[in-house]
């Protein structure tokens, strides 16, 4: 019988700062046979930990087509474990369980193949995996891809150094910063002062698109409302949620929302799921 709580050991092979308080970790299984067989769906998460400090749920934000070579997770320093993770060094061993949950819908099966990725705060991390996948699969060649990122402060906007590459791959970039002190641009995209809904004005948005979104809890309702006002159909709007989790398999109850477990039934949901479970957001 498989022990669902027993993690694999992974080695940190690379650490890259992606904001003032966040870093991208590239991880490889110590056991290369495990790495070779490893697979996940974009948008799934893993329980990543340090022996002695516990585990936390992190989205796997590397492209899924590189899963046999490495995985990446983004760590933002917010609590006890994430502080320890950010202080880790290349060569250190972490624990890794997963993938868990369902991921984003398969891009090749979308009713509306053009795509808008909306990321608020550290939501850029899970969105980044999809962007990497879009670039490595050349999805942008046939379809319009827009990425809208919002942040409280420009210093905390993750992945600014990768945004030029996004733009070079025909991804249309919009950025909003709530507390913007001076006019600036990232990857030639003028930063808009304000909250993320300000990027959702009719002229800039390709309404014939599917939306994937991740952000802080307060972001979902206003952004979904704005999208609905713009004429987006509920079934074309997907979002991914964060909760406290321990088991990852729908047993421990910490992530339960009514009859749904975010770990097992999510973390990705469709706006139509709100009909039966409005408390998700």
């Amino acid at each position: 019988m498989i022990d669902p709580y027993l993690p694999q050991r992974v080695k940190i092979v690379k650490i890259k700062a992606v904001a003032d308080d966040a870093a991208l970790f590239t991880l490889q299984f110590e056991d290369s046979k495990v790495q070779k067989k490893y697979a996940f769906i974009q948008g799934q998460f893993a329980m990543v930990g340090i022996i002695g400090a516990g585990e936390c749920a992190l989205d796997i934000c590397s492209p899924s087509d590189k899963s046999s070579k490495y995985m990446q997770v983004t760590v933002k320093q917010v609590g006890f474990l994430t502080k320890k993770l950010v202080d880790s060094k290349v060569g250190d061993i972490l624990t890794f369980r997963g993938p868990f949950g369902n991921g984003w819908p398969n891009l090749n099966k979308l009713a509306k193949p053009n795509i808008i990725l909306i990321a608020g705060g550290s939501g850029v991390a899970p969105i980044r995996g999809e962007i990497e996948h879009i670039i490595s699969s050349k999805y942008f060649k046939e379809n319009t891809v827009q990425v809208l990122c919002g942040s409280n402060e420009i210093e905390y906007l993750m992945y600014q150094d990768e945004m030029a590459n996004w733009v070079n791959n025909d991804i249309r970039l919009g950025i909003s910063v709530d507390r913007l002190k001076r006019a600036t641009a990232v990857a030639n995209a003028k930063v808009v002062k304000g909250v993320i809904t300000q990027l959702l004005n009719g002229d800039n948005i390709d309404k014939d698109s599917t939306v994937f979104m991740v952000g802080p809890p307060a972001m979902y309702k206003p952004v979904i409302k704005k999208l609905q006002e713009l004429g987006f159909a509920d079934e074309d709007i997907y979002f991914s949620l964060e909760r406290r989790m321990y088991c990852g398999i729908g047993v421990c109850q910490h992530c339960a929302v009514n009859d749904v477990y975010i770990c097992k039934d999510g973390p990705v949901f469709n706006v139509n799921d709100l009909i039966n479970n409005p408390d998700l957001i």
Partner: protein
Amino acid sequence: MLKNEIDKLAIYIAKQYDIYAPVLSKDELIVKGVNNIDNIDYSSRIPDNTFKQLFLPDQEELFSWKKDKLIKPDLSKVKGKAAYGMNVLDLKALGLFDLVFTNDPYYLAKRENGLVVGISSGAPADYEEYKIFSMDKVENVLEHIPFDIFLEKNKEGEFKVYSGSAKGRKVLRGAGIDVFENIQFAGLIQEEGPDQRMLKLMPIVKGSEDNPVWDEIAKICTACGKCSTACPTCFCFDLLDEAGADNTVSKKRVWGNCFYPEFSQVAGGKKFVDTVKQKLFFWYEHKFSRTPAEYKVPGCVSCMRCFKVCPVGINIIEVLNKLEKKND
């Protein structure tokens, strides 16, 4: 069968297992380790504490690391405990645990290496008081509760013995008991289908988040969490790492409690289940909506331990009745 033969059975079981059974001390009926089988209480009353500790301990080590080396326990060698004298309601709770932890090797090791001996002396005298869900006579429930051996005590103090598994039959024969009836476990759900009261309550509780009943109870509930600890069906857990001597780190599973502030807290401080009202709703919703939706059985067995331990006297039956009334 007379009591002295049942005593022989208990002695036989005690040779192979650590026996945990209800023991009366002063006014309290407590499930605890038993050294002297004469102390076992055969009243089939509901003990103050539950048997869940035997299968889901309040804290248990799953595995550990010594420096870099993973140390996995040999689960086949987990020493079995005998849960002796489990009443029907606690056996229903065990049946739910068997469903919840069906893929959990640590739970299964305790179940497989342990022994479950049920007992009934008929429905409790205050039967009506205990009735949240339908509780039929013993003959109708035995096929729908898990046990290895079941002892049915009549008014004269004589016992009828049932076996519910090959393990139970082996133990009975080993103890020299050849007269027993074999019961084939047919799942928790009765032939006539899922519990009607459960089906009626599901949508009522699910849609009750804004019901003023919760505001009313939240005014007196102290969110102490005793109800969860006392409940035979509450199984929330946390996983944590605990550092020990000699560079050892244990991965531990400990009971969680949805009334505690950190239950739903994520890094950064946000709590998704935050107010007392939300906690109450979460607790009831788990028992009367989420568990029925997932397992088709109620997440409550009507034992009323939550009411007995509640420092402010919140009565689960009254709460459900109020919700039903508000819904009419």
